[in-house]
């Protein structure tokens, strides 16, 4: 379910495709989402009926905390974050321009492999959102 936003309707549709590809590539991904720097949910694989605003707010909270910790430790942002919870893992991969690629998995997922797949689709996402190399912003 694409959200639409800075990348426009077509871009959001493309992003949704990229996220679905990620899920197909990495079968252990439950939900994938792209969050813009301002916390807007650009695209996600969330099923209908989920409160997207609430979900986006929570993901923005994770990304914001990650950036804050990165700054406290001498960086400007995070490259990746791995959070292990009772019901699974929440994985964050930083995008150029301040966006974030988020994926959730079950508790027994091979997290390293999922992160590898997330890093592989990162460039494609940055290209669509216009935050990659050569793009402004």
């Amino acid at each position, binding site marked *: 379910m694409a959200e639409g936003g800075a990348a426009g309707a077509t871009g959001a549709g493309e992003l949704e495709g990229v996220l679905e590809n990620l899920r197909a590539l990495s079968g252990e991904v439950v939900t994938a989402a792209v969050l813009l720097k301002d916390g807007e949910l650009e695209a996600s694989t969330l099923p209908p009926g*989920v*409160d997207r605003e609430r*979900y986006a707010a*929570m993901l923005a909270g994770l990304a914001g*905390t*990650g950036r804050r910790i990165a700054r406290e430790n001498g960086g400007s942002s995070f490259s990746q974050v791995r*959070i*292990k*919870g009772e019901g699974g893992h929440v994985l964050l991969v930083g995008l150029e321009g301040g966006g974030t690629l988020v994926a*959730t998995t079950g508790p027994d997922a091979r997290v390293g492999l999922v992160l590898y797949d997330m890093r592989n689709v990162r460039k494609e996402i940055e290209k669509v959102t216009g935050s990659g190399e050569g793009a402004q912003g």
Partner: protein
Amino acid sequence: MKRIFGRLVLLGAAAGAFYALLNYLRDSEGAKKGDVQMVLDTGATVEPDPAEAQEFADIARKVLEIDGENR
């Protein structure tokens, strides 16, 4: 004999309650070491302090709850 048996039952119940309490306290502990790992854009690997890790864990739990409801 009956009295001894009664005391044994009481003792067993008390031990069970203590064990349940111990498990509850263990489960409600904060984020454990290694639960949150970050790699910065500098390449450095960071493990947030317990308060920050707890902040991550609390939000992540809610995200995973939503996922669980929709799986």
